[in-house]
């Protein structure tokens, strides 16, 4: 029983990290109908930026905020420089470019910071909390992980539902041509979407780095699970990203815990295949909302 509780808590913690990555993928998919394979690599880059700031003895939270801000800027620049020339081109082009970016960014990170593993200090203790006599494999840092992704999700929800920017973002996602006729400067909205997506990825990087070791390809497996989570959720629903992330996190945690960690990837693949064969549009996507 204790093991089940630990695996569940662990699944939730990793699940919300996958959800943050999935949210980034969803934001970009909604805005530009592109799967951003570089999402993970960009998150690694911003995590390295946090490490560099910490190495220069910048305050921890300042470095944290710096990495998140870098995420916004890098996301916006990526859209402007690499992605904008691809609109209206064959669907294969953005796929090739985003995979190219993935490789490019990871090599640059390796060249600057070295290809070896290095530790990343957590914001809070990673020692398990004891509740009464029971010791849980669930730390203060894990609480922080859950809380910060929750804040991110609520923030995105509020932005979409109750702000003018969110209204423009939804309109541009659902009907770009009509949005332009109504005066929405869709180009800027797309840049904003990429900025927010990379911001979400940057948060995921900062949260996962203390749990695994920081290396140029730290985010590769996380991106795979985040992608599974996004597809589970239907690729264009932020709420779907959250639920998909948690389902993926729990599934992988149980499979890893009961069947051995070598089965984790297989478990994620099976989950993805099962969902895609039962509900190809994902759990949360309304098929009517899709206009490819």
């Amino acid at each position, binding site marked *: 029983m204790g093991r089940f509780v630990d695996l569940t808590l662990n699944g939730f913690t990793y699940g919300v990290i996958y959800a943050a990555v999935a949210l980034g993928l969803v934001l970009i998919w909604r805005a530009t109908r592109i799967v951003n394979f570089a999402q993970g690599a960009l998150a690694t880059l911003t995590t390295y930026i946090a490490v560099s700031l910490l190495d220069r003895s910048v305050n921890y939270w300042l470095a944290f905020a710096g990495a998140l801000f870098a995420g916004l800027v890098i996301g916006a620049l990526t859209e402007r420089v690499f992605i904008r020339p691809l609109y209206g081109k064959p669907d294969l082009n953005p796929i090739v470019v985003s995979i190219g970016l993935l490789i490019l960014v990871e090599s640059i990170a390796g060249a600057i910071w070295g290809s070896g593993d290095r530790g990343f200090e957590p914001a809070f203790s990673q020692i398990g909390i004891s509740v009464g006599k029971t010791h849980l494999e669930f730390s203060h840092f894990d609480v922080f992980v859950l809380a910060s992704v929750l804040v991110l999700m609520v923030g995105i929800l509020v932005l979409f539902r109750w702000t*003018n920017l969110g*209204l*423009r973002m*939804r*309109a541009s996602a*659902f*009907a770009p*041509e*009509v*949005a*332009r*006729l*109504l*005066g*929405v*400067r*869709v180009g800027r909205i797309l840049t904003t979407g990429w900025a927010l997506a990379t911001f979400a990825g940057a948060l995921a990087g900062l949260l996962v780095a203390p749990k695994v070791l920081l290396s140029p390809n730290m985010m590769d497996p996380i991106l795979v699970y985040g992608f599974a989570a996004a597809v589970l959720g239907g690729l264009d629903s932020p709420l779907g990203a959250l639920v998909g992330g948690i389902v993926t996190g729990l599934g992988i945690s149980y499979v890893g815990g009961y069947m051995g960690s070598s089965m984790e990837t297989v478990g994620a693949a099976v989950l993805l295949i099962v969902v895609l064969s039962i509900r190809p549009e994902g759990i949360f996507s309304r098929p*009517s*909302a899709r206009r490819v």
Partner: protein
Amino acid sequence: MLEIDRLSVAYGPVRALTEVSFEARDGSITAVLGANGAGKTTLLRTITGLVPAKEGSIRYDGKEIAGLAPEEVVRRGISHVPEGRGVITELTVEENIRLGALWRRRQPDYQEAIDRAFALFPPLESRRKQSAATLSGGERQMLAIARALAAKPDLLLLDEPSLGLAPLVTAELMRIIRELARTDGLTVLLVEQNARSALSIADVAIVLNLGRVVASDKAAALASEDELRHRYLGF
């Protein structure tokens, strides 16, 4: 005043408009008539910058607007209600209308323009918070027009507003358009397949055939030319 001078448009090698010229005076309703594929929709899409002009000029209030992006054209006071209405069904009725006015949100009469759009179409008022997907065809057309008006345009481009509507609904819609031109001095460019109802409210009309203007006159005069009616307008 909208002045279009020898406007040509092509989709690749296919010519869609050839040397189209006409003027639409302030406060007038100009019907743009013709069969399917005559270039009516292309004409509107070119005015708002969705389709690039190949040659010729589009001047509005004396300034060239050919080459401007759609999101800038609307800022010059030109609102376009696209074919098939373009209501965003994933948004609520109110969100659709607010979106139409959003670029003017720093203007003092921003809220007033939104309220007025609702006031013109009472059925929308009671459905403010509902998803636009729940509206009927006629209500969607009302919403699309209300949304365009929330931007306080001087020139309204309407692409087949009667499409798929019952005759009574069409008549009501035409009455509202006529009213807007009369009371607000709104200039209207009305693209219609339904030539009879468009001519009933238009001041002037042009007839397009295969991308060329084949006739252009006062609406009443055009309606009485039997041969032209039979040949191009189908009634």
